[in-house]
């Protein structure tokens, strides 16, 4: 028996080693394939996520809800102070609301006088956050809406107030949102009162960096940051956040969206933007259109 097993070891070992080698080669092959033909493998990934994660939904929703309730419960201790604070804020808000209403009426009147045509209202699809990226190296969330609901890659996502990210990767039932805080996220923005253009670059921290700013002297902490619509990435004018200065004196953006609680997200349906791609012609009378009267089609005479 002992001899038997040792002889079996003799040929099992090399075969085993060969198989392990093969396995490692296959794994490296998957990685290489991903590096070479990223879109295809990413589509595979989206499909895989689409197949697997919605099956967890029944368990995910209650567990997430329970954990959040526990977190909420902890905050009950401070409820009195919070209440006072909220009252104060509410009073301020009422003053602001009054001001906003007056401004809105004034704005509507002025727009009417000027015959300005605004963007048609953006419509949106609301989705529930199913899962996050699962690792601290990537900042993204998974929504429970996908190609089935007409979601397309590149659409903007907000939490109702501020921009959260963009759709990147759509499965049939799920869609992934790359958050603005992800280190791969770059977004053209406008900084409001000065109208400076810049690029918002995520760096895996809660406050993304402002890069490629033309004149930093014109920008103050507290300025509003909105999407600029450059490059046709997003519709212009979506609220993103406020400029803040980090301890390293670099300008960052404090995001308006509540990243601590991403539960429901709105995916804005962007209509395809008309592109003007040819220069204008010389101004002159329009060339006469060839009409049927000028060149009547020659019809073969009926025999």
């Amino acid at each position, binding site marked *: *028996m*002992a001899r038997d*097993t*040792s002889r079996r070891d003799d040929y099992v070992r090399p075969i085993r080693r060969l198989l*392990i080698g093969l*396995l*490692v080669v296959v*794994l*490296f*092959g*998957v*990685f*290489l394939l*991903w*590096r070479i033909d990223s879109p295809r*493998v990413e589509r*595979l*990934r989206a499909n*895989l*996520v689409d197949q*697997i*994660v919605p099956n*967890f939904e029944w*368990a*995910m929703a209650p*567990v*997430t809800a329970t*954990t*959040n309730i526990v977190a909420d419960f902890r905050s009950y201790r401070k409820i009195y102070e919070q209440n006072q604070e909220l009252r104060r804020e509410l009073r301020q808000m009422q003053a602001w609301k009054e001001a906003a209403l007056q401004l809105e009426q004034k704005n509507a009147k002025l727009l009417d006088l000027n015959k300005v045509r605004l963007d048609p209202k953006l419509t949106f699809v609301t989705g529930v*956050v*199913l*899962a*996050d*990226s*699962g*690792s*601290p*190296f*990537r*900042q*993204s*969330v*998974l929504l429970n809406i996908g190609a089935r609901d007409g979601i397309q890659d590149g659409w903007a996502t907000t939490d109702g107030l501020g921009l959260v990210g963009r759709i990147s990767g759509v499965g049939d039932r799920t869609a*992934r949102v790359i*958050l603005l*805080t992800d*280190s791969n996220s770059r977004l053209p923005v406008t900084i409001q009162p000065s109208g400076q253009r810049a690029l918002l670059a995520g760096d*895996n*921290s*809660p406050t993304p960096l402002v890069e490629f700013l033309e004149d930093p002297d014109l920008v103050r902490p507290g300025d509003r940051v909105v999407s600029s619509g450059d490059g046709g990435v997003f519709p212009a004018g979506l609220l993103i956040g406020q400029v803040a200065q980090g301890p390293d004196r670099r300008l960052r953006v404090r995001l308006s969206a509540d*990243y*601590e*609680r*991403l*539960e429901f997200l709105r995916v804005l349906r962007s209509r395809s933007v008309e592109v003007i791609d040819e220069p204008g012609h010389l101004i002159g009378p329009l060339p006469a259109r060839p009409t049927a009267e000028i060149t009547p089609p020659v019809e073969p005479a009926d025999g």
Partner: protein
Amino acid sequence: MAEQTANRPFAFWALYAGLGVFVIFVQLLPLETEPRRWAAPDYMMCLAYAWVLRRPDAVPALLVATIVLLADFLFQRPPGLWAAFVVIGLEVLRSRAIFMRGGTFLLEWFTVIVVIGLVIVAHRLGLMLFLIEPAPLALDASLFLSTAFAYPVMVAASHYLFGVRKAAPGEYDPVEAR
């Protein structure tokens, strides 16, 4: 006895796969959508290394590769690279398992820490080689530290909860099992 030893690896395989799916599920829960400054330990790597030094038959390479590759795909990592290095580390430890059976825990821990460190460094180098921007150094460093410190916990949990214990010499050796 012979029947038990023949059956038990399957139970361990199922347990490992189940724990893998559970860990993936928990990490996918959208509890923290803010960026974190530190990385949680890679539980599946830790668990596989802890088991392979105790019961080498409990964690076949194919099973570990499947689970880690699934995690690669679901966690938005470059698929395959991390899994490949984890499997290489697993096989290195497997070849050492026989020599470490009688050693102290400190020696084992040290060996595993070295292997984990090499796996993380190799993964980082692999990413750089293929011109993919690797994660911030602090994140990888915290991944290394947390995984290293999770290892004794995993060993204790495997020992007391899952019954993955170091086999006494000859307990499951097929030669002696007669």
